[in-house]
């Protein structure tokens, strides 16, 4: 029986001067699922994300995306393959308008991004699609707002819209609900569930409520290594996971 894995890592390892931040992680993300990466602070979750997107170079191990070895590729190349990440702190372009934020993601496909002699008005053809994306995250009425003025939860929604603009096959979301109020958490969780309909999502998340609600598979990391893996019911009943999480759980 062969399962369709969109992303696979083999013995992925990252050492910083003798300190092993990520230790032989074998991650398998099944196509079409929402996969969560959880674990106590310092477990290496964000480091794994940085390795997958080559913001950090692995010390050892390989990363396969759709069966292709992407380990030697640069960050921007990986993004162009369809693996698009978000960041732990909201990753928007603060002094551009909300519409422009989404358009930045859309404009690369036009192939005119080096054209310094062309008017930016040539980008207006993208406005329709940009508005659709903003509609999908309930930001249509904010299109002309300067992004810095958006409330935090809305910024995270904009970030998801920008990520969606690239039509990613695999979305990597780094703590999408971190620092949010109660209502925002619910809204963003629903949003993720909705946009994950025809793609794959790998997310780091502290909020176990969100994880249990929307994620299909959960991988628990501890001290850089995989501690347990499986659906929420299995993982949450695992004695080692309970022990690791006692007193450190956020949700």
């Amino acid at each position, binding site marked *: 029986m062969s399962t369709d894995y969109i992303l696979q890592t083999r013995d992925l390892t990252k050492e910083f001067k003798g300190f092993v931040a990520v230790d032989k992680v074998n991650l398998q993300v099944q196509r079409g699922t929402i996969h969560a990466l959880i674990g106590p602070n310092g477990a290496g979750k964000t480091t794994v994300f940085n390795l997958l997107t080559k913001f950090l170079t692995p010390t050892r191990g390989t990363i396969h995306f759709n069966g292709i070895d992407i380990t030697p590729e640069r960050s921007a190349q990986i993004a162009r393959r369809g693996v698009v990440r978000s960041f732990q702190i909201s*990753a928007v372009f603060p002094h551009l308008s909300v519409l422009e934020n989404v358009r930045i993601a859309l404009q*690369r496909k036009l192939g005119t991004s080096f054209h310094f002699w062309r008017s*930016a008005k040539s980008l207006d053809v993208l406005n329709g699609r940009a508005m659709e994306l903003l509609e999908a995250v309930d930001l249509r009425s904010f299109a002309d707002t300067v992004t810095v003025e958006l409330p935090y939860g809305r910024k995270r929604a904009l970030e998801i819209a920008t990520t969606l603009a690239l039509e990613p096959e695999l979305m990597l979301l780094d703590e999408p609900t971190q620092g949010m109020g109660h209502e925002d958490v619910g809204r963003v969780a629903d949003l993720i569930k909705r946009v994950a309909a025809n793609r794959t999502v790998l997310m780091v998340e502290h909020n176990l409520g969100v994880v249990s609600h929307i994620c299909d598979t959960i991988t628990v990391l501890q001290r850089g290594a995989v501690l347990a893996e499986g659906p929420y019911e299995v993982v949450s009943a695992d004695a080692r996971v309970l022990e690791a999480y006692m007193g450190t759980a956020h949700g």
Partner: protein
Amino acid sequence: MNGKHIGWIVLLLLGLVAPFLVYPVLVMKILCFALFACAFNLLLGYTGLLSFGHAAFLGSAGYLCGYTMQGLGLSPELGLLAGTVGAAALGFIFGSLAIRRAGIYFAMITLALAQLVYFLALQFPFTGGEDGMQGIPRGHLFGLIDLSDTMNMYFFVLAVFLFGFWVIDRAIDSPFGQVLKAIRENEPRAISLGYDVDRYKLLAFVLSAALAGLAGATKTLVFQLASLTDVHWHMSGEVVLMTLLGGVGTVFGPIVGATIVVSLQNYGAELGQWVTVLTGVIFVVCVLAFRRGVVGEVALLIKRSGIRP
């Protein structure tokens, strides 16, 4: 009609009447430095890169233009072309090395390379060393217009400035400019959207260097002189001052900044060394009290007063 259109019209009118109100050579000097500062602003204000070696582009373009005119006896338009292309090539070398690092390290690499250029300018035989190149002919533009006439020269300089400024204005407001702003605002995010940010930075650097070169070559024509002053690191510092004073990241700010600094140096000349102190005080006041620079603060006032620009 928006704020930028009004700015362009004011600029054009000022450019047309200024030589009849003020000493034309002073206005030409202001225009050259304004173009230089605008070129610098493309990098600092719109890409977020602080170069501390821009004098190298201004100065070496001056020498190249001077050599083309005096040594090879070619026409002024070819002199400007030589200066601009030379500065662009130099910019490519500087840029390729410097963009590998960020922040203060980027600034230090550009400074180190600019010092290298200064040393070469001092040592090469054709630059005239300490004396510089003097008595460079202005020549006839396209073989027709005699540039030794001050007014002809003035309107040529104005045309060159407006062209350079238009290129910068367009680059800022282009698909390329959008990516530059994205890189300035959040570089990791720009990468994660699939942009090879180094290539964008390099193109911005080369553009900025080329236009700084155009400014330097034009300045050489105006003063019929290419000297070490223009490759000295003082000049790299001065352009930072002009840009910050006028308003970094604003389209017209560097022009205002250059006007203030050059006018101060000119009219404050009788103060001798004190003009440096005065400039320093103005700079400190600017950084402490109105950090957005003259144009930046005015734009903010207009925005706050509720008038749509």
